[in-house]
């Protein structure tokens, strides 16, 4: 295994608007091979929009994007062939069974039957999902749908895994399995872009973190670098995040008011 590119993803001054709303405003970052890159931000920060632009699902207004040295808006198919994507909502074909779904994915990606079957068996056993292989996806729980989505994103051994809240709905064991898979993936030279709200997860698995707020990049670096930026040496990511997104004062205010209101209505 050898890494052929020094940078997996390069985003420079990315801008994307929807009508009057600027979803992403001048975003720049790079993702290197073998790293788990965290994208953090409150709701509406522009994380999902960024991820969709990287996948070529939506087109940017301006800025430069390179994924594996390619422009995803022009060479969408080539880019997607090397990316695995786990979306926030497991929107997979509910009318299919996992058997039908993985046959479909394997056909589209033109994967080797024997090799893929082995991988599929391994993943289904690891996620304890074998019994759902012939169930309709519509009847599966949120967590089991998420497992199917995760397996679908890993089956072709992508160079870059883009995961938007991948742990949502997973039980503790499956979440641990997935974290191990992510680590293994990066050890082999692959990269991960992890978009999440769960700060503990980002703190635990990410090598570098970019904090976004209102479409802009607020800070980028390792946990130590971020804590220096926030003037909170030794603080956990939650404190750093709230400080850098200017939410710390607002939280103090909300908690104060909440105490006041509930305190006045003692049972």
């Amino acid at each position: 295994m050898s890494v052929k590119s020094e940078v997996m993803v390069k985003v420079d001054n990315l801008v994307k608007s929807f009508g009057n709303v600027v979803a992403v405003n001048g975003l720049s970052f790079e993702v290197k091979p073998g790293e788990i890159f965290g994208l953090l931000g409150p709701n509406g920060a522009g994380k999902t929009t960024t991820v969709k632009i990287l996948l070529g699902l939506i087109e940017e207004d301006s800025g430069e994007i390179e994924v594996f040295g390619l422009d995803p808006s022009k060479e969408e198919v080539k880019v997607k062939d090397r990316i695995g994507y786990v979306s926030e909502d497991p929107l997979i074909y509910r009318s299919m069974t996992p058997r039908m779904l993985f046959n479909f994915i394997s056909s589209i990606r033109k994967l080797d039957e024997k090799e893929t079957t082995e991988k599929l068996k391994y993943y289904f056993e690891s996620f304890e999902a074998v019994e759902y292989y012939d169930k309709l996806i519509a009847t599966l729980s949120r967590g089991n749908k998420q497992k199917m989505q995760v397996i679908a994103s890993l089956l072709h051994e992508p160079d870059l895994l883009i995961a938007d809240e991948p742990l949502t709905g997973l039980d503790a064991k499956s979440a641990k399995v997935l974290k191990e898979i992510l680590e293994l993936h990066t050890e082999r030279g692959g990269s991960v872009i992890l978009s999440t709200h769960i700060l503990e997860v980002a703190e635990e698995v990410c090598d570098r973190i970019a904090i976004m707020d209102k479409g802009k990049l607020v800070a980028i670096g390792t946990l130590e670098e971020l804590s220096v930026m926030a003037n909170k040496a030794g603080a956990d990511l939650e404190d750093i995040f709230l400080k850098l997104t200017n939410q710390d004062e607002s939280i103090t205010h909300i908690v104060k008011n909440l105490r006041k209101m509930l305190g006045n209505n003692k049972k």
Partner: protein
Amino acid sequence: MKNSELYKVSKRVYKEAILHAQLQAAGSNQQRFLERIQKDRVARSQNIIFKFMAAVYIASLVFLPVISIFQIYLNFGSNPEWITFAGSLSFSIFFIFQLVILIVFALMLSWGIMSGGPYEWVHTLPFNRNHIQKIGLFTFARSINIQLIVMSLVLPIGVTTAVSLAAGLYLGIGKIFLISIVSIIISVLNTIFNLAVLVILGRKLAIVMEEYDFNSKRANFVRISTMVIYLITSMLVVITIQYGIEKLPILFQISPLTAGSTSIMNIVLSFIAIPFSLGYLMTIFLVDISMIPSLVIVGSVTGFLLYILLVYLVTKKALKTLRNISSPDIKRFDPKRKKTVVDDIKIKSTTPTRAYMKRDISIITRETQQIMILIMPIMIPVYAAILGFTGAFTVVLGNTGLTDLYIVLMFFIVMNSFILSVSLTNIETGGETITASLPINPREQVKAKLPYFFSIIIVAILVAQIFLVSSPIFYPSLYLTLAFLPVFPLIGISSLLFKILLFGKLKNKFAVEEIRVKYKIYKYILGFVFVACLMALFLYTAYVGYWAIFTAEAIVSVIVFFSFNYMFPKAKWKVKYIF
């Protein structure tokens, strides 16, 4: 709590019931359905559209008793036995159709109410059991209020008006008043009976839909059957109206049976509570009772008493069901789930085009609205052919057997092509991110849609052809259809490409799904006009001669071929993975 307040609460439960039923009907595509109702106002008002459609159908059926009444008074002296039979038959068909229409259009919603699901939330609020039962009754009444009003009024109004016009002077006010009262009694009883049947069937359907996995084959079968029955019923009503207007007067005038046979038939049928006793009773009051055999009168009265008994029993059961569904004690259904042992996790790959075809089929066959893609295009031309066969169209144009009926059929083919293009591309607009993240070459996606244009439209026109077998234009139409065989897929594929051009043009490629949705309505109109113009061109060549048809087919084929390859070029890449 006052009834008026409970009635207000029932509005919220009713809306919940509608959503519950619509989600069940959407089956595996609930997410797609939710996306659609968020964006589409019409989809949100689907139940109101259905209510009004049912009401219009029920009201329009009144022509059956009205024409019968006119015919009874026009022909009664000639053959009283036969007239009694024909009159009773018309009324009986009217009653049966009323029941069928009510059930077909209200059943999907009724089962949502009958499942008990929409009341679960109400149980958590401070209402007592009696209140909740009342809310249940009010909710059901809301679901079919318009249909019930129309159903109970249409017969008395139709009968009174027709009798007054046809024999007002002859019968006198007293007799007309009596006939009106009888029609009101029959109408009210019939409405109660229909309502009770709807409640019972709604509950049965709720059990089928909720006892099993909502995506089970059984539930899917119910969804698809319901949709097919909707279509067939709608068409049957229109065909019945057209045939009725034409043939009913003939039925009254020509008796194919002997007087003895008719008499025996009348006696036997009059004893049958559903649907004949009501028809016979109504007819007896319309005609001179002295001319009706006493056994027919006895039979009608006995049949009517049996009908009342039946209404009582069915209503009792329906009321019990209605009380139960809003009760917290109602038996909830635990989906029967089998424990499956999977021992053959294995990938079976195929070509991307075939994979898309399999995926499309799995979506189409599991969504009620998508199944219309397969049914509608076949039924529409058949329907057109049936209407045309009645003799309204026979004008021959040009030298190739082109007739005015054929032009009408082709208009339906244009509609079909357009419906197919929109429906097939909408499959891609479901928001399934699993597809969005795959390295898809749109060429494979589009190729997977092409077989529908080669099969469904051609099957539709050939089936329509069957209905013209005994028509003088059958052979000219058949030869023209054979010459037109390449036209049907060409029209369909052109429609698909043009729709993608309007909705899916991106910077560097064409997407199958609708991306550029601005001016959507105008684009749809433009798409339809484009296909219609293309078809008009082919019809013009049919007017000129066979040589013109073949030349046009060759030219359009070349244009379509090059357009397809321009919009969806073959992929030329070989991916090299890091791993």
